């Protein structure tokens, strides 16, 4: 039942803060903070009392919901979703803290939306029923739309609209694919069900499998995002309030990656393998294209947004490499990117609060004014360019290593992304903190509240870089299982050969 409580606490907290918002502005903040902290403590306490993390499913909750249509309330937790859950709660807490001063209007409603998004996200990470999954998937969207549309910057309406359209349209494609899978499975076995465990290994023709998979891919690739479906992202990120950008970059994008690992690979074992060359190509294109566009940006938030496109390219490259090393890298990238990009968005928010601009050309030489901020910015720029000792390095290294096994050419191309990352990351530091001071801005360095946020993020990114085992060992059983299921069900290997296949043959 713990999984149900996790979601219930967030939903309860959401409604409470909305109502409490009428009483005072501080109350919703405290309520949200309490709800998220409670969730975090709950999940950590639960994990600590487990004997082993090696079981495939650490906890499984399966209750009937609408039995007539084979819809169940099926939640389950494995190592992968555990990591994502902890990440969600932690960043949720951070996003409350950073919004403490930034959000001044309709505070209650803001926190209602925030908690609702988070509830949707953890629902996505836990659902093992496709209908339920879709429900949570949609639950994330509307509050996010409000978050950008109400509390965002100047061009927020257009941005929120674009975000909504892209994700909604692709979500609907996924819904159609879910229905198709439901019917295909029902027709071949007589059991009409949305249950993930039962749908695994559904027998279907290759074309059917491919088409249904493309439906799922549409949703996940837009979320990730993959070039050329990325255009919602820079707008949404740059116009959202800081907490919104943080959640978008750090968590929402990860639902796409999670979906690929959890659903696309095991449910469509043959089709996903035959899609692999295209998938890897999309990954490489994303890495280079995102980086290339990141160079050109003068808006700090937009720049960071494009770096996300680039970093997520590594995720899709890893997912379609189909080996354990790459998958470990993907999980690591999901977490490390969440922390490092989240931190950069927070930095952008802090700068905006002080200078009221996001324009890099108006900044410069701020190190002198705010050395602590500069040091934090430097650390996360270094994380973003893949400096050893910080989490992102492990992630990108493992992905490249894994991808190298799958496809030498793609892997080498992708590694060019590391140089690109160096260039745009150094540009961030240089434009903001180094060089001659061009303005006479006087402002305070980080406050205690901000220092706590930044310090906790720094500690985590360093921890990830130095002790990656904590994360990798947690996720390992889940990843191995995913690959096993994929290999087991992929019985027709001859179909998986493709013209684009440049795999290394020794």
């Amino acid at each position, binding site marked *: 039942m713990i999984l149900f409580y996790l979601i219930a606490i967030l939903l309860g907290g959401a409604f409470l803060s909305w109502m409490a918002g009428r009483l005072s502005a501080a109350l919703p903040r405290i309520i949200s903070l309490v709800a998220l902290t409670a969730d975090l403590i709950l999940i950590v306490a639960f994990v600590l009392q487990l004997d082993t993390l090696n079981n495939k499913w650490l906890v499984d909750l399966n209750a009937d919901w609408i039995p007539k249509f084979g819809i169940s309330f099926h939640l389950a937790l494995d190592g992968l979703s555990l990591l994502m859950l902890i990440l969600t709660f932690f960043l949720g807490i951070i996003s409350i803290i950073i919004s403490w001063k930034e959000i001044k209007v309709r505070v209650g409603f803001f926190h209602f939306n925030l908690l609702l998004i988070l509830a949707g996200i953890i629902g996505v990470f836990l659902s093992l029923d496709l209908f339920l999954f879709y429900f949570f998937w949609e639950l994330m969207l509307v509050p996010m739309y409000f978050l950008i549309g109400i509390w965002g910057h100047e061009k927020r309406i257009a941005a929120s609209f674009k975000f909504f359209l892209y994700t909604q349209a692709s979500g*609907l494609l996924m819904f*159609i694919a879910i*229905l198709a899978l439901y019917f295909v499975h029902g027709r071949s076995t007589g059991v009409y069900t949305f249950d993930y465990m039962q749908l695994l290994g559904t027998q279907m023709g290759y074309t059917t499998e491919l088409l249904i998979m493309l439906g799922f891919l549409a949703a996940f690739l837009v979320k990730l995002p993959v070039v*050329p479906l990325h255009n919602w992202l820079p707008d949404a990120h740059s116009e959202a309030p800081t907490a919104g950008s943080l959640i978008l970059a750090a968590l929402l994008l990860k639902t796409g990656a999670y979906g690929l690992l959890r659903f696309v690979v095991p449910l469509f074992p043959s089709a996903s393998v035959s899609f692999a060359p295209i998938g890897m190509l999309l990954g490489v294109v994303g890495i280079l294209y995102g980086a290339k566009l990141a160079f050109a940006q003068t808006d700090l938030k937009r720049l960071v947004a494009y770096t996300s496109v680039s970093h997520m390219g590594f995720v899709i490259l890893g997912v379609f490499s189909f080996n354990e090393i790459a998958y470990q890298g993907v999980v690591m990238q999901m977490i490390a990117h969440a922390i490092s990009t989240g931190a950069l968005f927070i930095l952008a928010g802090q700068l905006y609060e002080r200078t009221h601009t996001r324009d890099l050309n108006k900044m410069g030489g701020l190190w002198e004014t705010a050395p602590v901020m500069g040091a934090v910015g430097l650390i996360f720029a270094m994380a973003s360019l893949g*400096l*050893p000792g910080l989490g992102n390095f492990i992630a990108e290294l493992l992905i*490249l290593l894994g991808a190298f096994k799958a496809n030498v050419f793609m892997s080498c191309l992708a590694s060019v992304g590391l*140089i690109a990352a160096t260039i745009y990351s150094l540009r961030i530091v240089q434009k903001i903190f*180094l*060089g001659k001071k061009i303005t006479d801005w006087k402002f305070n360095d980080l406050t205690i509240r901000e220092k706590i946020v930044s310090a906790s993020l720094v500690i985590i990114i360093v921890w990830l870089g130095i002790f990656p085992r904590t994360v990798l060992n947690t996720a390992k059983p889940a990843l191995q299982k995913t690959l096993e299921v994929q290999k087991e069900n992929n019985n027709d290997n001859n179909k998986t050969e493709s013209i684009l296949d440049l795999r290394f043959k020794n």
Partner: protein
Amino acid sequence: MSNFNYTLFIVLIPLAMFLLLGLQGHKFKKLSGILGTTGLGIAWILSLITAYQYFFVYGNVGGVFKPMLAYNSVWLQMTETLHIDMGILLDPISVMMLVVITTVSFMVHIYSNGYMKDEQGFARFFAFLSLFTFSMLGLVIATNIFQMYIFWELVGVSSYLLIGYYYQKPSAVSASKKAFIVTRFADLGFLIGILLLSFNTKTFDFISLTDIHGPAIACGAGASFLGLSVMTWSLIFVFMGGAGKSAMFPLHIWLPDAMEGPTPVSALIHAATMVVAGVYLVARLFPVYAISAPQGLEVVGYVGCFSSLFAAVIACTQYDIKRVLAYSTMSQIGYMMVGLGVSHYGGEEGLGFMASMFHLFTHAMFKALLFLGAGAIIHAVHTNEMTEMGGLRKYLPITHITFLIACLTIAGIPLLSAFFSKDEILTAAFHNNKLIFFVQLFVAGLTAFYMFRLYFRVFWNKEPHYHHTPHESPLTMTIPLMFLAVCSIFAGYIPFSQFVTSDSKPFESVMEMGIAIPSVVVGLFGILIAFVMYKKETTLPDRISTGFSFFYKWAFHKFYFDELYLFVTKKIIFRFISRPVAWFDRHIVDGTMNGISAVTNYVSFQIRGFQSGQLQQYAYVFVSGLVGLALVILYAFVK
């Protein structure tokens, strides 16, 4: 076997100092210099103990210096067989490097207490110095190629931070960025090389990689690509990383600019330690190069040879004293690469390897001395330009003498350290590749010329009008100078062939007079020309440079390599890649999406003539589309 556990502290002390000074440095103020220096002093003493214990007590087992793992732990278990370790590997070259790094770093620490004392970010400077020392030490003691890569990158970052130390100076900022990006570009080759290498040999571990009877070397004759084996390709890629860090042609462009950093940094990083990392990398994998990829080693040799000539020519034309030294560094590293390139594996055939390591050792001492001396000069006259100097011997007696010693050493004057090491490289080259030998002999003359050009211009020649009288530096700065001068004189008497050899077996090396004499003569000749041209103020240099104006101009502008790179990156890449990509994103990607929405808009408008907001139109289109698609699927699947 002895307990070498304490070697861990050599690495950890600088790390601790970095954390302490980085986080709390502002509280210590001036004390931070003393703290950092003390920490490094301890590390230095520990390194000397390690060297003693390794070379004289425990290391030599049955006439061979065995590699020893002082510490090892699995850091990242990727699959059952593949893992990345973190550990400490002690073997002759790593122990030698420990001594070199801690010695120079310790001297630079002491020196910086004086040189940097009025700077604002005093604690920050020492924090970064400690970070650099930590990374560099981690690099040389790496037990496996991945550990090396990790510290390799950290070294790059510390170099970036230190070059950009004067962060308000735009030239320093752009130099630091350039250094980082160029070396990282090279590291890309290194990474691909590692991936290829480990893919073929299934191991990252240095001990098993370089085991001449091991599987790694055996798979040298694997699949081939463009006429070279995969092994050769991977080693050439690895060398690309080394060439980047060691500023070999054509990846050298960052080094002269890196002189924007504080001078002690140039001494430590861009002369004595970091820039020799590339040499160390090749030396580390030497058995693999020599046995399974001799073509790779040839590349190393030719690149080194060309770089050393190229840099020496440019050095003769520069006026900024630090830049002269930077090109000199590049040239000397070229020597070391040549030494490796002309060497074979085992016994006396491995003379080049030994000589290269020997030269690395002596070069660290005299080049650090030269840079620190240059720092003392700059400290005294507040300029880098040698045109604004002259006659300084009267004002800076200690700096003058120590600088002279260093110049004589680098010129290869007999009985000073570089005479021995350079001579051995030339001997090895003579026996293996005559072309390289003659080029290097010529470079030896050039070296003597440009160093004494610098020496005479600065310490003799006509005295310009100084704003205030130059004065000798404080003791904190002169003590390191004197110590390094002593090292430069006597380091040559260490019998390197007894300790550091390609197969870890000692051998006797003999000096060949037929090679030693010409090289000394060439060196003296270079000094003589410099003496004639620069001892007194004459118009001779100007007349010569006008006489060779075309060539002189090319050399003075560093053969326009910066411009070439700028042209390629700015003009070609920007114009032919960036712009089309940006255009594509704006017009095609966004345009298509806008087009779709426009069409949708239009269609829905046509259908119902909606007057209200867009959202409803879209919602309508989506819902109808959804229903339509659902119907199609229902029809297709549920009959």
